[in-house]
């Protein structure tokens, strides 16, 4: 090599080294529920995620979306294909905790990152936490813990509690009981995807409860509220945002008015990132986003922020970049605890009549800088 060539090569190398950091590319596989009873949740996560990608204007993320139809075996198949044939760097998107339990452990064991926009089962937050697993939404118990604390504040002393029989349902009841001081009028597991709650409502009526707490996301909550309305029972309800989200309120009707529910996010949350998000989401999709959309949006921005700092192929650097969570979350302050689950405020909301539609309004704060209880069991 002549001197001239060598000089040119060194100059080129120097120039490259000095160039400003450009976002590295990553292939992201999204497995989410786009058909069947839970479709509304997955559609909102996907739409929020895609909106953030479009807004960023960067093409750092190549997104592949697949529908799991809320079936664990299908989710496992898709994950295997995405990891082995499509060579994704990051998986995300799963809504339901039973599907997350089936997919996440093997995904992170293969060195692929999993960043949850929703499901946060307790089993993955404590002893079985993983350095490659991040949850950008919440640990399952959190919102229900806030609901338990809120029930105390509202003076309820004999609450009837109910959730579907799957990991997130167990977490919901555990979370509620952790902070609730009163008596339990009764405790019930329903089936995941159950549509008729006549038998449960009869038992609530018979139990002498002074209030009800339930975790019934998506169509399950809509069905319950419709039947509750027809039952003649009129006990106050305290719940978490999953059972009174923007994805459900239009189908629930006025019966939901006044229901108290807890959430890490709300459409009326006052910060610049959230205002911009709500406006852009409405303009793009013509509806008000649900908390699932906000979580999808945050998940995408988290990934984008990390890609600006590090190459996804350099797992250690990329992990550090994720852990820094250097992005403007639509829920306001956001940081990761040692088990890669959020440290965040949890608000108390009320269902109100908004501008032509039912919506939620923040009426108080249940917890500030809340961390889940499993964090101490996590050793990475």
């Amino acid at each position: 090599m002549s001197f001239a060539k060598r000089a040119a090569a060194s100059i080129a190398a120097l120039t490259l080294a000095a160039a400003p950091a450009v976002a590295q590319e990553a292939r992201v596989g999204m497995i989410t529920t786009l058909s069947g009873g839970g479709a509304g949740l997955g559609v909102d996560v996907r739409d929020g995620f895609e909106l953030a990608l479009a807004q960023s204007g960067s093409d750092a993320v190549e997104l592949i979306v697949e529908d799991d139809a809320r079936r664990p075996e299908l989710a496992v198949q898709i994950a295997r294909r995405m990891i082995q044939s499509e060579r994704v760097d990051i998986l995300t998107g799963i809504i339901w905790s039973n599907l997350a339990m089936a997919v996440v452990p093997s995904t992170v064991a293969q060195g692929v990152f999993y960043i949850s926009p929703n499901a946060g089962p307790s089993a993955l937050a404590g002893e079985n936490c993983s350095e490659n697993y991040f949850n950008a939404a919440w640990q399952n118990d959190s919102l229900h813990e806030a609901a338990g604390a809120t029930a105390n504040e509202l003076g309820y002393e004999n609450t009837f509690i109910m959730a579907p029989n799957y990991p997130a349902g167990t977490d919901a009841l555990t979370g509620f009981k952790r902070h609730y001081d009163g008596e339990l009028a009764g405790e019930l597991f329903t089936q995941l995807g159950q549509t008729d709650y006549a038998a449960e409502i009869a038992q609530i009526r018979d139990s002498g409860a002074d209030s009800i707490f339930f975790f019934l996301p998506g169509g399950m909550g809509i069905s319950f509220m419709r039947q509750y309305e027809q039952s003649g029972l009129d006990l106050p309800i305290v719940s978490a945002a999953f059972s009174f989200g923007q994805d459900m309120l239009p189908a629930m009707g006025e019966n939901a008015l006044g229901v108290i529910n807890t959430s890490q996010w709300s459409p009326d949350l006052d910060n610049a990132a959230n205002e911009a998000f709500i406006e852009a989401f409405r303009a793009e999709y013509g509806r008000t986003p649900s908390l699932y959309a906000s979580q999808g949006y945050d998940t995408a921005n988290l990934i984008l922020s990390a890609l600006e700092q590090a190459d996804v192929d350099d797992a250690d650097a990329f992990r550090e970049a994720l852990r820094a969570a250097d992005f403007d979350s639509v829920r306001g302050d956001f940081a990761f605890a040692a088990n890669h689950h959020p440290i965040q405020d949890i608000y108390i909301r009320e269902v109100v009549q908004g501008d032509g539609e039912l919506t939620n309004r923040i009426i108080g704060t249940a917890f500030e800088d809340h961390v889940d209880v499993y964090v101490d069991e996590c050793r990475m």
Partner: protein
Amino acid sequence: MSLSLLVEQLLNGVQFGLMLFLMAAGLTLVFGVMGLINLAHGSLYMIGAFVCAVVAGWLGSFWLGLVAGLAAAAAAGAIIEVVVIRRLYARDHLDQVLATFALILILSEGVRIIFGPFPLYLSVPDLLNGTVSLGIVDYSLYRLALIGVGLLTALGLWLLIARTRLGIRIRAGESDREMIAALGVNIRALYTVVFALGAALAGMAGALVGAIQSVQVGMGEPVLILAFVVIVIGGIGSIKGAMVGALLVGVIDTMGRFLLPRAFGLFLDPSQAMDVGAALASMLIYILMALVLILRPRGLFPANG
């Protein structure tokens, strides 16, 4: 546990059973007369609910919505029979299952494209809002009306099959298809009518139940599975069997979910009892089906004796 709770749960079981009967009746008629396994029956239930919700939303009347839902399901049934199902009668059951499964996917996706992925709102008519006192228990007026509609439909169906010319043809078709065709009955038209009748019943069930449940894509499949359990227990092809099977499944499922956790509560701690009870309760009707299959492989009331 009070008597009123027990009575309320029994009513819930009967109501659930009668709605299952509306689904199972169509399924068992189609199987009995045409020998066809129709997995897409649940999609007709969904179509009934969606059309009812949309029309009720436009016109502000649940009743017009109900009529529209029923008509739409019947029309969809007739179209599906003419376009797809007609080609399947001569094929074996595997082909039928494959083709009708494809119909589920197509119809679910079609409904999602037209109406969107989010559940629709369908309200209970004002006339049937609230509760009514039945002496020892206050019961939802709408659910009571569902029991009434279920019983009337069962009666109407029985009259249709036992007392009308169409009924004679349906029964004749169940016994010997070739013979009634040879006797000059237009068997193709009869098949379309029976299929549309079954579809209308499914659409009616969907619309009625849609008012107290969530009107959403895929709502038909869980009901379809139960309806199959019902006709296996009752005897495939038998309306009477469908009625008895539906009531058995409705009452056993409801009472099981309610009583089993309590029974286990007598010797386990509440959380564990709920866990075990809920798990076992969800198996109960399948255990019943297995027992019936062991003891009476052709069901409780087999159609062709």
